[in-house]
């Protein structure tokens, strides 16, 4: 019985899928933080290469992947799609569970899918250095790998809590030649301001983004790079869903449910946008698409759909998205990559319009699920990924009750080999089930930027 569904290297997608072309209504535009007017290409040219700005705003349904980029992707793509038969047996479910395994990339997650094209376009424009931020270290290590390929210097502001918790991610960045700095740092105004306000802060993605944007904006030879949230990042990740759809088609299948975990939304966009496109265009109107987030940082399930900054200091464009407020510092859960106050504007719109839905889980229950997965399928997933595993298991258990044989697809976005301290805490009974007291927060004073 087939377990792994593999594609030839030639089947690596030649084009990314741009869901903006299939949205029934246009996106609300990002706004300039100073003028509050829609952002134009020139506003972004200080920190991004022009080709990425074009992709960010492109109305084209498909965008060609450069051959040079596909050549690098061959190192790990097409990634395998697994039929999780052992998990199905463990759950005694009639459901068919498939997972796309993105842990095979050099950095161990889906992140290089966008790091490589981003570094490539920067190289094409002659950029010498890239500054970025990283939460749990997945993005930082992916960009360190990608910039190394194109001989670009890389400076990474790593959220302080993760910098301490996950020293080996920092080591990986060093192996690939990047500089990794704990954030908030004293190198930027944003970092210094945060440290002055609270010297013991664990940091947050919002602060680290402010630092990296400021670094790029104040150095002529430096661009900024973001590992999630933005349209072009989601675009690059669609190779995940495009391959998955081909792989399922090769066994004459199509998913009833598509699941991914959400921090900024890129891996979820990657697995789900091609299927959401099928839904929007009427090819598969009933596919159920589920975004999974932590109960401690429940942006899509409890946030407001409103304009807000993407970072703590208010340097980035103001975007219409689900947000918990740009000054929200989520508790230090082990799924550091899901600690973001906002979300991809496209994912936000699709959830808001009912094309997708969102669920949230507590920390302990997702580790229960990760353990079940590891003990059936063998793979130890990252704490972020365990959220998707939990939702897939819950869907499969629902099928056990109803007797339905649904086809469930989820994105196994990364391995947890550097997250053993999180598993240790789980086994020591020390995981805390954080929550977001949304009702009380809504009653407190308003903190979103005033947009005319």
């Amino acid at each position: 019985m087939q377990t792994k569904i593999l594609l030839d290297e030639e089947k690596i997608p030649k084009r990314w899928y741009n869901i903006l072309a299939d949205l029934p209504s246009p996106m609300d535009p990002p706004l300039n933080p100073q003028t509050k007017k829609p952002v134009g290409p020139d506003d972004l040219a200080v920190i991004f290469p022009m080709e990425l700005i074009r992709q960010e705003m492109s109305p084209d349904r498909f965008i060609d992947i450069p051959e040079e980029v596909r050549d690098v992707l061959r190192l790990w793509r097409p990634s395998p799609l697994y039929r999780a038969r052992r998990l199905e047996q463990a759950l005694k479910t009639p459901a068919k569970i498939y997972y796309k395994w993105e842990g095979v990339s050099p950095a161990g997650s889906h992140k290089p899918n966008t790091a490589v094209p981003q570094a490539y376009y920067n190289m094409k424009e002659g950029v010498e250095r890239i500054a970025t931020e990283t939460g749990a270290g997945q993005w930082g290590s992916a960009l360190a790998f990608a910039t190394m390929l194109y001989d670009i210097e890389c400076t990474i502001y790593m959220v302080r809590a993760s910098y301490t918790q996950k020293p080996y991610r920092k080591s990986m960045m060093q192996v690939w030649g990047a500089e990794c700095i704990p954030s908030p740092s004293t190198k930027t105004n944003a970092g210094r301001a945060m440290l002055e306000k609270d010297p013991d802060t664990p940091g947050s993605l919002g602060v680290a983004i402010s630092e990296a944007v400021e670094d790029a904006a104040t150095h002529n030879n430096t661009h900024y790079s973001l590992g999630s949230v933005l349209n072009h990042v989601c675009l690059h990740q669609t190779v995940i869903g495009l391959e998955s759809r081909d792989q399922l088609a090769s066994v004459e299948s199509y998913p009833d449910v598509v699941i991914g975990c959400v921090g900024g939304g890129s891996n979820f966009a990657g697995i789900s946008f091609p299927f959401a496109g099928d839904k929007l265009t009427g090819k598969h109107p009933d596919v159920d698409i589920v975004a999974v987030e932590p109960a401690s940082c429940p942006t899509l399930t409890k946030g407001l759909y409103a304009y807000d900054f993407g970072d703590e200091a208010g340097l980035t464009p103001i975007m219409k998205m689900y947000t918990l407020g740009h000054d929200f510092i989520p508790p230090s859960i082990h799924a550091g990559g899901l600690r973001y106050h906002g979300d991809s504007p496209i994912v936000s719109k699709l959830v808001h319009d009912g094309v997708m839905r969102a669920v949230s889980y507590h920390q302990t229950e997702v580790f229960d699920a990760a353990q079940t997965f590891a003990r059936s399928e063998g793979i130890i997933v990252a704490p972020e990924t365990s959220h998707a595993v939990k939702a897939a298991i819950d869907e499969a258990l629902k099928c056990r009750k109803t007797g339905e044989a649904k086809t469930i697809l989820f994105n196994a976005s990364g391995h947890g080999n550097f997250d053993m301290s999180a598993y240790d805490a789980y086994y020591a009974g020390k995981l805390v089930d954080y929550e977001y007291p949304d009702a009380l927060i809504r009653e407190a004073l308003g903190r979103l930027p005033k947009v005319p």
Partner: protein
Amino acid sequence: MLTIGFLVNPIAGMGGAVGLKGTDGLLSEAIRRGAEPEAGQRALAALRPLKELQLRFLSCSGGMGEDALRSAGITGFEVVYKTPEVTSSDDTRKACQMFSDRGVELILFCGGDGTARDVYDTVLDRVPVLGIPAGVKMYSAIFAVTPEAAAEIVHHWVSSPPHLRDAEIVDVDEEAYRCGELRTRLHGYAKSPYHPGLVQGTKQVWEDQDEERAKAGIGRFLSEVIQGTPEILYLLGPGSTTGAIARQLGVEKTLLGFDAVMRGTLIASDLNEKGMLGMLSGHGRCRLIVSIIGAQGSVLGRGTQQVSPKVLRKIGVENVIVVATPHKLSETPLLFVDTGDVELDAAFGEYFSVISGYHIAQRKRIGRVSSGI
């Protein structure tokens, strides 16, 4: 060099061993039942690891300290209180007064809740206090988990400045306790050293590691909520965590009482049941903010008698907000509600979402109270 006032309540724990659930007033009965002093052994377990440290001890003669210090091989001590043949709570108080007068930096005592109360009554929060657990009941929050943990906390104190926190001293009604009923009453707040590493995975969760920082976050968050809901009357329960909310609002709060706040202004202090009912009938919506009392996870118990079932029903269980620092929550696996009204207790459901920081809550399971905890 750190100077420690050290004392042992030699009779602590004797009642427990022979099924008396406490020794207060029952020493002769305990001895008749064959109880033997055990506190000395517990004290010894805490002292042995301290032998190599540069410490100066002030203590009491014989069984109230000297014997344990000598057995542990500690020589750097001075006897400042002569222990009488038969000891009582009076001796604990007198010895602590001597320690305080001599300027000790920490009082390390070995005993139970009764001893803790005697120490606290003498030095209040002027001198930090750490308990080596040896009593029958240890519901006060100044006790280390084990004697060895007490030693470790002292070790940490020597190597770096201590973290001090407010720790509840609770009274347990011994008579009721012997009848299988836990009745506690908040007695006061002592200052006590703690070391987060002893209860938390190191480097695991940053905001768990600083009590004052967590309290300030809770205070800031709920003061914003109070100001954002001017139509709601808030009753702030006892404790230093709820006190942080009052501090943020700039209002004077009684430490052990229930105070009423509206639109960020204090409108009544130290309310009893009647006062609360009067307040409630005059206002529309009301919320109650309470913290966890003592080490046993009590949220609303028979100790907080002002908040009677009648008051709670009037407020509504959905309007009860529980606050606690992450450190306190890490020490408290289960929370308990024991209002004396079983139906009302059940209405709280299975979990509390406890506010533990700025915009942060933790889900904690509510335990079921059975007779004779």
